[in-house]
């Protein structure tokens, strides 16, 4: 018995020592080691490959109910957007037109982003209040409304990284800038050939907020 106590004292001393040794290759010895529990509470991001997706599942049938309750007031029953709140559904085929409509269906390249964003930031003003199952259900509902999955498709941590989004290939990398002609630092200084006709005035559009005092 005595031995055991001695042993465990020795053992904890060893642990203490080893954490000390660990701390030694830290240059400033500031901050503390984060526990797994602490990290789990804050590490909520979900990556395109599904990394970080929490255990849970849901389909569009259940999602419709949750969505109607938690989201429809702003985003509309069908994701069409109420007033100036963002629309979440539709817009396919519009990206190369004069009036592109960018939604989760027409524009978002990854379903993981829908999960990540809705869980972290929605409902607007009640962030991080949804359960994981509710979040999967809502994402399934939006994917269904965008005609990306069937209504009985069960979305979960196992397949969220595998959903093919219509616009996944719609993004260009890397950044091609500078993409303009003049990068030699020597622009025209005199008698430059430029258009100098006035073709529009902000005053005529008349959307500038007015000063109440003036």
């Amino acid at each position: 018995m005595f031995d055991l106590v001695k042993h465990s004292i020795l053992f904890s001393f060893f642990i203490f020592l080893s954490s000390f040794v660990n701390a030694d290759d830290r240059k400033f010895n500031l901050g503390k080691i984060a526990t797994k529990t602490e990290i789990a509470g804050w590490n909520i991001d979900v990556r395109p490959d599904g990394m970080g997706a929490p255990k849970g599942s849901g389909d569009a049938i259940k999602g419709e109910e949750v969505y109607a309750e938690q989201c429809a007031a702003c985003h509309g029953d069908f994701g069409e957007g109420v007033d100036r709140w963002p629309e979440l559904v539709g817009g396919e085929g519009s990206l190369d037109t004069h009036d592109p409509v960018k939604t989760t269906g027409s524009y978002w390249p990854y379903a993981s982003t829908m999960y990540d964003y809705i869980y972290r930031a929605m409902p607007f003003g009640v962030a991080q209040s949804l359960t994981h199952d509710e979040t999967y259900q809502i994402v399934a509902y939006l994917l269904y409304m965008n005609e990306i999955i069937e209504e009985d498709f069960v979305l979960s941590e196992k397949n969220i990284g595998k959903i093919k989004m219509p616009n996944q290939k719609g993004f260009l990398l890397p950044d091609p800038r500078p993409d303009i002609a003049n990068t030699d630092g020597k622009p025209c200084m005199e008698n430059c050939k430029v258009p100098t006709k006035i073709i529009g005035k902000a005053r005529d559009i008349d959307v500038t907020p007015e000063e109440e005092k003036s």
Partner: protein
Amino acid sequence: MKKDKKQSLKLNRRELLVGSASLGAMAAASNSVFAKQVSSKNLPPNVPEWTGELGDGVDVNPYGMPSQFEENVIRRNVEWLTASSQSSVNFTPIQDLEGIVTPNGLCFERHHGGVSIINPKDYRLMINGLVDREMIFTLEDLKRFPQTNKFYFLECAANGGMEWKGSQLNGCQYTFGMVHNVQYTGVKLSDLIQETGLKPKAKWVLAEGSDSSGMTRSIPIEKLLDDCMIAWAMNGEALRSEQGYPARLVVPGWEGNMWVKWLRRLEFGDMPYMTREETSKYTDLLPEGNARMFTWVMDAKSVVTSPSPEKPILNKGVHQLRGLAWSGRGKISRVDVSLDGGKNWKTAKLHDPVLSKSVARFTFPFEWNGEELLIQSRAIDETNYVQPTIQELQKIRGVNSIYHNNSIATWLVNSDGKVDNVRLG
């Protein structure tokens, strides 16, 4: 949508006019006008009224505020742009500022879930993922690391985003005001990361805010370790709440959205996280329907702050044109000014200090005798990048990319000295 708003703005104006017909409103209006009028009894040879009495003692304003006569130098927003003020933006009154420092209370705001109010005692920064040690730091911990003090501009990638198709907003503040420039105090990530160590596979970091939007952006690790910092002070005092108190990320030269405020976590990983803010937003739609992604750097840009729509010319004779120029690629090396819509250019005077990834101040003296002017400015940075015309940008990017409009703007000075935001073509 825009049309609706236009009508409602007009309505407001009409209401205002009707309202001012009532005597009370008239008195109120004339009062504030009166305050700005010259009162000859204060002019030489008379003794001004403030000389004959004692002023306030110390401590009447323990935290000093601008003179009451500067009440118009404020941030302003465009209400019809967004659905809620918690997910919205306002603009820095750059037309009223001098030098290169933006006063803290005038730095534009952009929030996605309102301003979080955080007791610094409750502040924690978590670092997790591909590091040797996953760690948590308090604010006091952060302040014990080696310190760095740097001036940087912060510009929203959507600054000028309203002007892609044509001139829409008749104001220097509304078209260029999503920029500010302050001195940051904080710790460089390259120092902080020595505590946690980095796994060789770490290529990206996810920066996450603790506000109600849980703002997140992916940043390549080369940039993070090059010049990024976590700041707790701006212009010598603690960050303002609306700028991320008690600590925010500083990503010099790159779009403002990445400068995560109320920073709570940095996660190191081996690929980008593709957050909503770097997919749905902050991607630049091209005419073909595809979009550029990860367009982080803010290209060189300049603006004439006076004369400008808010700063008409009041007298004939000599004037000092004033403006700001900045580049996310380094230092501004030169600014040119044109008074004839870009046909002829003269080089403006750049004022000290000219710092990398900071705004620089330029001035240019000119004479005005009542003729129409088409004022433009053109920035050149140390990489020899020349600020483009809107036509150059439109030719490559179309008109729907919202972000990264760094083109040359034109102010028309009318013969009465009033100034208009116009588009040349």
